[in-house]
């Protein structure tokens, strides 16, 4: 009996052709899932404001104001706030103070993140460096910000550098751990395969370790960024030439509840927006994941 010949490798087309999104069932399903996710997000936000509103209606205005009043406070004080100038902050509004805070957070995150990622990835591959780095990171990571922030203020003074350094310090510490774990989680088969193509350590770092760790590192960066806002505002409250922390300090002295809530909303919204931007960037650079 003669068996039929083995099928030759055809040129398979497994990829879904880019059809009209409305007609393609796969795309329709994705669209539906996104709509459901978006509706849950909107419901969550509505619940938050609903609870806030209900609480504000039960408490005196000296304790809690409604979201609408906080929103009005943002609207009237965003470009210029006379009450803040009383505290020596100059002719400022929430907008310019926010710019200072954003600038410090992003500068600190970029510097600390870069240092942390480099040390994390290198220490995951170089045993001697790991032996040195691990205890240092462990010790630095346990220093409470309540201790570190005043120390930095004493050492470097009331200058923007102090807050940037504090954010960079904690970002680096966190990113060492995230990057180390990301590098360890890469399947060793990739590096082994690269070695069989003649790839040395430098090529493996550039083409295997760095791209392969991107998704996990971005996840770590998002957590670090979320923490950085709190650190920056706290450091500014302790002592800074500008920033949302200084606004919060001034408004606390004035017992201005609507202003305080306005500041909290501004920082929270900024944190969410930067997180969304970081996520969008991650989806672009790690489209393969």
């Amino acid at each position, binding site marked *: *009996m*003669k*068996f039929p*010949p*083995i*099928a*030759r*490798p*055809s*040129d*398979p*087309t*497994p*990829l879904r052709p880019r059809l009209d999104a409305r007609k393609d069932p796969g795309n329709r399903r994705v669209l539906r899932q996104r709509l459901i996710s978006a509706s849950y997000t909107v419901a969550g936000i509505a619940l938050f404001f609903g609870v806030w509103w209900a609480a504000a209606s039960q408490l005196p205005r000296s304790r809690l104001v409604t979201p609408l009043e906080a929103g009005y406070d943002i609207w009237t004080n965003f470009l210029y706030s006379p009450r803040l100038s009383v505290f020596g902050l100059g002719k400022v509004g929430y907008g310019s103070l926010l710019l200072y805070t954003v600038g410090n957070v992003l500068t600190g995150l970029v510097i600390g993140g870069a240092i942390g990622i480099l040390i994390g990835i290198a220490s995951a591959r170089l045993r001697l460096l790991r032996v040195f780095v691990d205890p240092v990171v462990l010790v630095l990571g346990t220093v409470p910000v309540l201790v570190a922030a005043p120390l930095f203020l004493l050492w470097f003074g009331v200058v923007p550098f102090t807050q940037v350094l504090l954010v960079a310090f904690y970002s680096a510490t966190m990113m060492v751990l995230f990057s180390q774990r990301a590098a360890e989680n890469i*399947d060793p*088969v*990739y590096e*082994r*395969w*690269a*070695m*069989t*193509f*003649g*790839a040395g350590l430098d*090529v493996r770092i550039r*083409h*295997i370790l760095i*791209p*392969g760790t*991107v998704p996990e590192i971005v996840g770590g960066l998002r957590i670090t960024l979320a923490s950085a806002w709190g650190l920056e505002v706290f450091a500014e409250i302790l002592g800074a030439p500008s920033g949302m922390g200084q606004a919060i300090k001034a408004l606390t002295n004035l017992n201005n509840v609507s202003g305080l809530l306005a500041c909290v909303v501004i920082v929270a919204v900024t944190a969410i927006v930067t997180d969304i931007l970081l996520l969008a960037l991650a989806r672009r650079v*790690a*489209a*393969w*994941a």
Partner: protein
Amino acid sequence: MASHKPILAVRDLGVSFVRADGTHVVALNSVSLEVFPGEFVCILGRSGHGKTTLLNVVAGLLGAQRGEVRVMEGPVTGPGIDRGVIFQQDAVFPWMRVEDNVAFGLRVRNVSKRERLRISREHLALVGLSSVARAWPRELSGGMRARVAIAAVFANDPPILLADEPFGALDYVTRRQLQAVLRDLWQRTGKTVLFVTHDVDEAMMLGTRVIVVKNGGIAEDRAIDLPMPRSDDDVATPEGLALKHLLLHHIGLE
């Protein structure tokens, strides 16, 4: 096809491991063999008998305690571009597009971008993946990723190809298709192949020679004098069946 000068020589190779409890496991014991240019050598054996260890030592990914491995008369001291490797595990880089995966070895060797692209596209066509050159590996099936791995290794043009049960995790039909792809590429390029498998039929379908590794040593070393390319009928001849029974006996099935 084979010349008299071996392209690969393994002499008195000994490899052992230390278990967590401190006991020694001898993976390879005084293994010696010679492989000649153009041969398709199948290393057959049961799991845990040393065939992958042998391949890893030849690939330079594992050191030996005793003996030596020489490739083209030079000692093997580590991985090198003269030995391409296809692993059983999916090693295709998920963060590179298919054509970039195929061109990776060329990129490491600083081949110009235009030339890389040309060679990459050419090899993707050979394995039937032209239409997915710009796809991400996650968009491909397991069998297609195996083809990408084959194309990547052949694109780098190593004289020796080492394959460690590359089709072991694939379904029967895909495995047969990929065997045909590999055999065609081998016949087209004339490379020397060292192919680890635990599948007697696979060894008989692909190999010009079969070496049975048993308990860390070589139990059998036979040429397979059957026409190439082979059909199922070709291996069902009296000579083919006799060899099959012998191989099954060595791996403990008969």
